């Protein structure tokens, strides 16, 4: 993609930043980011990355837009209810920024398919809301050496951690395995205040942008926890675990497998 007059105008407010400039903008044009999930986290992440001019966005999600999604999944509109989320997201991104190449996959990411999909991307955003998918993404990214942003949200809280495989802690260094099925309250019971998804999904987009631009400090080895009720952030250092089952010294997970899905009866961002 060339930096023509129109594009210089479109991206002028970030090109003017010395840390970005024309060179940084070209890095964004050349970058390929995969969003797993076009829900509460994926919506703001996709919109901001598209607006910033990230050249290629992959979106994978097997769900259709549900009325109960619209309280936070801001990439979809009322008219989109019943449509596949990836189609709705693609339309909205195209309307926002026609520069962006979109690869939309209306399917569920599995142990069989994810490695092949990942191969075409520089950075991955985990915007899923179930642990089977979160652990699948973690293991796939660690095994393939693709950096990614892990995040989770619930009620009035969110947290995120950026994983640089082999260099910083992964999800399994923090929690070696997913919680057993049925151990957790359901999505519908637990709830989420919409803007919390916006805060955390936007922070994920920033992680991707800083990775692409090579500026600042990533949330690698640092879990950022947001308490939206008290408007407070806190940070906890997460060291790599030498006994981590996937990125430790003697890993027991050497190939990708599907974790047993954790029950989650809502239709929110399940991929």
């Amino acid at each position, binding site marked *: 993609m060339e930096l023509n007059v129109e594009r210089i105008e479109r991206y002028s407010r970030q090109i003017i930043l010395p840390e970005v400039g024309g060179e940084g903008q070209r890095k964004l044009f050349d970058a390929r980011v995969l969003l797993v999930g076009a829900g*509460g986290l994926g919506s703001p992440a996709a919109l901001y990355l598209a607006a910033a001019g990230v050249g290629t966005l992959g979106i994978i999600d097997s769900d259709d837009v549900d009325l109960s999604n619209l309280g936070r999944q801001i990439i979809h509109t009322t008219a989109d209810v019943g449509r596949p989320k990836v189609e709705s997201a693609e339309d909205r991104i195209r309307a926002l920024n026609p520069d962006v190449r979109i690869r939309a996959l209306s399917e569920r990411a599995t142990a069989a398919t994810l490695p092949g999909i990942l191969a075409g991307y520089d950075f991955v955003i985990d915007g*899923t*809301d*179930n*642990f089977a998918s*979160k652990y699948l993404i973690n293991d796939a990214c660690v095994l393939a050496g693709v950096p990614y942003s892990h995040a*989770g*949200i*619930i*009620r*009035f*809280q*969110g*947290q995120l951690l950026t994983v640089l495989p082999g260099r910083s802690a992964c999800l399994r260094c*923090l*929690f070696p395995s*997913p*919680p057993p099925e049925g*151990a*957790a*309250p*359901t*999505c519908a019971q*637990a709830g*989420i205040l919409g803007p919390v998804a916006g805060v955390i999904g936007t922070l994920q987009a920033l992680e991707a942008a800083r990775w692409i631009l090579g500026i600042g400090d990533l949330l690698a080895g640092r*879990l950022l926890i947001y*308490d939206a*009720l008290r408007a407070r952030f*806190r940070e*906890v*250092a997460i*060291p790599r*675990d030498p006994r981590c089952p996937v990125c430790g010294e003697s890993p027991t997970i050497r190939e990708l497998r599907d974790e047993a899905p*954790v*029950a*989650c*009866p*809502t239709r*929110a*961002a399940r991929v």
Partner: protein
Amino acid sequence: MELVINGEKKTYRNGLSVSELLVEGKVEMPQYVSVQLNGAFLRRNEFDERTLRDGDQVEFLYYMGGGSAGGDGWS
């Protein structure tokens, strides 16, 4: 003694173990919480024997994801 729990100072009786702290703090689903003591993760089998000292910094970390346990389980 004073402990710093998830960044906040709180007062507890001396000699409290990590397991007892999980009970006294009414931590939701303590079997799924990750515990960091002064920056290092504790193994689950250390919770009973590990006695807390004045000034210790404890972080309770929760699984978080829609449909997950987690949230602010600390009270």
